[in-house]
C-alpha cells in the first residue's frame, strides 16, 4: 500500500471546491424562490419543487429577453457553424499552401497569418461599419461568417501536414491518387484526432462569443444565450434571480459537456497546437 499523499489531496480538493462551489450555488439558486434570493436567503440546498423554472424559461421569455429555447438554438447553430466552417476553410487552405506551389503562395500564407494579430476587440468600430455596408447587421450570416476566418486552425493543420512522410505521399501518387483523392482518403483520416480536438476548442469558442453578437445582432431573435443572460442581469431593479441562474446553468451545460466528453482529444489538441 502506498502512503496517501495528503497535502496533494488537500490542495486539489480546495481547487475543486473553488470551481464547484459557484456552480453548486447557481444550481441551488435556480430552484429557489426569486424573492427569497433577493432578500438574501440563498440556501445551499436545491428545492426539487423549484425545478419547473427550467420549463418556464425554456418556453417563455422574461422582460427584455426572449424564450431560452430560441437562445439555445441560436447559440448552438452559431457554435456549430463557426466550428465546422473554420475547420473546412482552414483545412483546405492549409492543404493548398503545404502540398502545392502556386504564385503568391507565401503571400497568401502570411495574409492568413496576420489575422492572428487582429482580434475583433481591436477593430470594433470599423468592422461594424463594414458589416453595415454589406447589409449583414442582424443576420445569421453576419453573426457567424466573419468569425470563420482563423489563422490558428490553419497553422495547426499546416503543422500536421508538414510532418506527413514523403513516402506516404509518393505511394499515394504511384497508386494513381489525384490531389483530391489524397486529401479525402489520406489527409482527413490522418488528421482525425486534430479534427476532433479543434472541434471542441472551436465549438467552445463559438458558443462563448460575447462582444461580436453584441455588436452585430441587436434584435432579440438573434440573442445568443450568453447575450441573453447579461441582458437579464442588466435590469438590476427586479432581477428574477432564479431565472438568471437557470439560464446560466443552461448556458454552460453544452460547452462543458463537449469538453468533458471529448476530454482526451481536447487536451492533446490544445497542448499540441502550442508547439
Amino acid at each position: 500500500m502506498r502512503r496517501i499523499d495528503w497535502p496533494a489531496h488537500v490542495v486539489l480538493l480546495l481547487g475543486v471546491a473553488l470551481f464547484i462551489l459557484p456552480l453548486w450555488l447557481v444550481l441551488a439558486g435556480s430552484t429557489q424562490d426569486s424573492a427569497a434570493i433577493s432578500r438574501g436567503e440563498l440556501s445551499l440546498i436545491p428545492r426539487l419543487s423549484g425545478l419547473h423554472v427550467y420549463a418556464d424559461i425554456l418556453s417563455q421569455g422574461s422582460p427584455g429577453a426572449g424564450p431560452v429555447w430560441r437562445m439555445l438554438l441560436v447559440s448552438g447553430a452559431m457554435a456549430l457553424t463557426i466550428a465546422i466552417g473554420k475547420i473546412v476553410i482552414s483545412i483546405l487552405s492549409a492543404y493548398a499552401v503545404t502540398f502545392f506551389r502556386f504564385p503568391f503562395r507565401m503571400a497568401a500564407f502570411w495574409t492568413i497569418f496576420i489575422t492572428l494579430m487582429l482580434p475583433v476587440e481591436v477593430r470594433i468600430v470599423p468592422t461594424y461599419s463594414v458589416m453595415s455596408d454589406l447589409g449583414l447587421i442582424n443576420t445569421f450570416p453576419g453573426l457567424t461568417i466573419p468569425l470563420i476566418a482563423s489563422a490558428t486552425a490553419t497553422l495547426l493543420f499546416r503543422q500536421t501536414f508538414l510532418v506527413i512522410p514523403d513516402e506516404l505521399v509518393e505511394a499515394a501518387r504511384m497508386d494513381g491518387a489525384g490531389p483530391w483523392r489524397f486529401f479525402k482518403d489520406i489527409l482527413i483520416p490522418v488528421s482525425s484526432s486534430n479534427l476532433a480536438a479543434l472541434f471542441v476548442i472551436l465549438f467552445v469558442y463559438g458558443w462563448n462569443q460575447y462582444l461580436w453578437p453584441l455588436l452585430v445582432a441587436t434584435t432579440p431573435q438573434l440573442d445568443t444565450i450568453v447575450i441573453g443572460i447579461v441582458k437579464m442581469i442588466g435590469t438590476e431593479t427586479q432581477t428574477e434571480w432564479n431565472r438568471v441562474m437557470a439560464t446560466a446553468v443552461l448556458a454552460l451545460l453544452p460547452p462543458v459537456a463537449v469538453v468533458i466528453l471529448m476530454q482526451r482529444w481536447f487536451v492533446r489538441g490544445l497542448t499540441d497546437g502550442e508547439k
Partner: protein
Amino acid sequence: MERRTIFPGRAFPILLVLPQLLLTFVFFLWPAGQAIWSSMTRADPFGIRTTFVGTENFYDLFTDPLYRDSIGRTLVFCVAVSVLSMGVALLLAVCADREIRGRGWYRIMLIWPYAVAPAVAAVLWILLLHPQIGLIGRWLNRHGVPWDYKLNGLQAMSVVIGASAWKQVSYNFIFFLAGLQSIPRAVIEAARMDGAKGWFRFRTMVLPLLMPTVFFLIVVNLVYAAFDTFGTIQALTQGGPGKATETLVVKVFRDGLINLDVGGSSAQSVVLMLGVIVLTAVQFRFLSRRTDS
C-alpha cells in the same frame, strides 16, 4: 520548413485558399485598414465632413489623462489576472502530477471551467459576491466590512480580477500539467537520489524545465486578460463604478459605440493592434527558438 513532394496544378490550390483569403480581406484587412485611416481623420460635429488630421488623434489620446489612467489600469488588471491564475494553476498542476489516487477525476473537475463563457463566469461570481444576495458579500457586510463592488472601485477591480482569473485557471492547469508530464521521470528521480528535497528540487530542477511553458502562458494570459475579459467586466460592472474597471477594450467599446467618437476610438484600436502585434511577435520569436533547440 517546406515539403519535398508536391502536387502539380495551379488553379486547384488557388481555389482552395480562396474562401479563407476572401474572408480575411473582407472582415480583417479591410476594417483594419479603415481603422488606420479613420484614426488619422476627424469628423465635424455634424458628421458631414471628415478632414485629415494626421497624428492629432494619437496626440490627443496620449495627452488625455483618462486614457493614460486606462492604460495603467489595464496593466494592473492584466498582471494581476495572469499572476493569480497562473499561480493557482501551477500549484494544482504540481499536485495533480503526483502519483495519487483519483488523478483522472481531479483532472476532469479542474478542466471543465475552460468551457465556461467569460460572461457566464461573471454570473457565477455574482451569487457569491453580490452585496445583497451573495454568500460572501452578505457575510462581509454582516461582519462590519462595508462591501459593495457596485460602489467601491477597489472592490470592483478585485471582483473582476478574481472572476477573470478563476476562468483562466483551467487553461493554465492543462498546459502546466502537460509541461510537467513531459519532464523525464529519470531527471526527477536522479535529483531525488542526490537528496534534493521538495521545494529545492522544484526550484532548481522542475521550474527551469518548465520555463518554456511559463513564458508561453504569460503571453497567452496577458492577451486573454486584455481582450477576452470584456464579457466578464461588462456583466459585472460595465467598467464602473465611474471608470474603476474600464480597461482599454471596454474604453474602445464605450467611446466608439456609445459615445460615437469614431476618430478617437479608431486611434485606440490602432494602439491596441500594435499591442497585439508586439505580443504575437514576442510569442513567435520565442516559440521558434524553442523548436530549434
